[in-house]
């Protein structure tokens, strides 16, 4: 399964991912129309700012393999889709008890104001690439299989080492 992988060192804090997410989860899926909609379209990805380090980092649902939110949800509103392997939320089952929010390590379960139910990343089922990933101008978000993502990181690490061997210092 592909995941939204984060490369935190690339994030500029522009919040393009947040807006793209809200627009994708709007009625019209069009920026210019979405801004006037009711219910107000909501984002599922959060750009968190860490003042001490002056950095911004996008945080979104990890679709955990052993997802605590699905374990604790009393109504099975949160469950794992066996085909796509995504952690999905069924609003019609949700009773708004927020147990899931208490156990999620990332705090990425939000609240849909009007319907008073939980709300989280669904990896944009209507799209090939999630809206946030496509919107990120610096490619801080990538949509990839973990093995591919790690593979790239490994080869980058290897390249650094190799260069270090040539110049005698590790950059």
């Amino acid at each position, binding site marked *: 399964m592909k995941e939204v992988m984060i490369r935190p060192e690339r994030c500029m804090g522009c*919040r393009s991912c947040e807006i793209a997410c809200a627009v994708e989860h709007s009625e019209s899926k069009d920026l210019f129309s979405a801004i006037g909609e009711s219910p107000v379209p909501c984002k599922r990805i959060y750009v968190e700012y860490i003042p001490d380090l002056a950095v911004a980092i996008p945080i979104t649902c990890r679709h955990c393999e052993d997802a605590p939110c699905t374990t604790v949800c009393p109504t099975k509103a949160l469950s794992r889709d066996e085909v796509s392997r995504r952690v999905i939320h069924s609003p019609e089952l949700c009773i708004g008890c927020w147990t899931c929010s208490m156990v999620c390590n990332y705090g990425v379960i939000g609240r849909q104001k009007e319907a008073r139910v939980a709300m989280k990343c669904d990896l944009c089922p209507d799209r090939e690439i999630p809206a946030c990933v496509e*919107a990120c101008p610096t490619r801080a978000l990538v949509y990839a299989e973990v093995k591919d993502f790690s593979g790239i990181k490994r080869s980058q690490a290897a390249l650094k080492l190799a260069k270090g061997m040539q110049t005698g210092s590790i950059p």
Partner: protein
Amino acid sequence: MASKAQDRSIDPASLIMLKQAEKEGIETAWDRYEKQQPQCSFGQLGICCRNCNMGPCRIDPFGEGADKGVCGATADIIVARNLLRMIAAGAAAHSDHARDAVLTFKKMTEGKAGSYNIKDEAKLKALAVEYGIPVEDRNREEIASELARALLEEFGKQEGPIQFTRRAPEARLKLWAKLGIEPRGIDREIVECMHRTHIGVDNDPTHILLHGLRTSLSDGWGGSMIATDVQDVLFGTPTPIKSTVNLGVLAEDKVNLVMHGHEPILSEMILEASEDPNIQKLAKEKGAKGINIVGMCCTGNETLMRHGIPTAGNFLQQELAVITGAVEAMVVDVQCIMPALGALTSCYHTKFISTSPKADFPGTVRMEFHEETAYETAKEIVRTAVENYPNRNPERINIPDEKQECMVGFSAEAILAALGGTPAPLIDAITGGAVKGIGAVVGCNNVKVKHNYGHVNLVKELIKNNVLVVTTGCNAIACAEAGLLVPEAADQAGEGLKSVCEALGIPPVLHMGSCVDISRILVLASAVAKTLGVDISDLPAAGAAPEWMSEKAVSIGTYVVSSGVYTVLGTVPPVLGSEAVTGLLTKGLNGVVKASFAVEPDPFKAADLMIEHIEEKRKALGLEP
């Protein structure tokens, strides 16, 4: 990979070049636009402010995050301020162009710009009379020198009035005075925009926008109008003339020099210099059959209108011209010149020559142009092009065959002359119903719209419905390329318009010039309104900018609306982040200046909106539908 060309332009010549670019892996604006996708939502909505260094501040359009900047500016304030800055930039561009034209004119009167002289003495005198400068028993040099000073003063005036605003109908002038938006001086209004948008100055969206209207008027009835009129005095007022347009005007066997940009001060000299016998001889020696000077964008419109010099294309064709491999020199001055031309020309033998003291680009040969030495520099430029001819790579030459005849040169004066000296026949045609009204269609190209698709379809729809179209800028070139600027295009018009065009031997779409020449449209509208004894806002007329992109277009749209003409924009301006500003522009302005904006990307629907508006105005005037 499948070709993307078909989605990028409707123009056959451009399609050939787009495919060539694909084949050679050459990047164009369309590719760069793709790489920009998706574009920043804050920017598109106009809700990002960088006006002070506590920012940048952004407003969350969905109301979850920040609803104010650090200083407390709301989305309404930020959008209004950003819009005002766009108007200021646009007005500055037109007006600074005008300043240079007036300075050249002034230097000429002082004998310091020997290459220039007065081509239209009648217009010189008419302008002098407008300024209350005596003309009887005086030589033209005296008149010109006094007029030059008076025109120059318009820029630095503090309390107005800008003389040419007096060309507007009485009712319009009274309305502007009542609203307090009569421009006081060209430079003053632009400077005040920058002051008002500084942190902590003007923070009421309506108040901000009213100044936007005033600034735009200092452009339309000030800077742009001065540019048009001074250029007419110096280079002649256009009269109907035939020419050809599109990339096919580039010659296989001649030195091709493309003049791209905006100011005829440069292009007129290049034309003269290209006729120099020594340079002609040099061209022959270098193996060329001659020198082919062609225009591009608005400088192209200027020389097309005055001399019938062919034009190679509009804004989105600047890169395509270079990709023909047949351009010896791309000579530029200011405005709408893509910096991308630097890298692009370096892939060809093309010399990229920049001339304006104000504007340089990557990879240029610098040949700074000054009035005092205008002809000499122009000759150097042409010589550089000629000497570059042998460097052509014949294998890379691919000039599309497509070129199209056109009839251009319809200055307000020329239109009145064609009508027999008064607007009466046009008014009769309108009141009689043969012509439903007038559509002014102008503006740029924008990669967000398939090249020329918006322009051509909107104009075709209008003439089909008996709306006479006046055009300038990149729209005019698009119409020319689509064959709409020939008298035979009357066949595509409705019966009424067709009969009028046939009687007068004119096309159903009248090319009135470059972007500063939208001032000619104002003068024409004003003349018609005055003859009818009404305000411009009462006329069965509407404007459109189907593919606009530049800040100049924002200023233009604003002065056209402020002058009373309903205007439909084909691309969305960055204002939707504020409901208040959007509402004011699309509705509220009706209660202020009796006209407003609409946004409609579909050219067919945009035409419907314009026609609907024209019908309403006809009804209000008691005319048959």
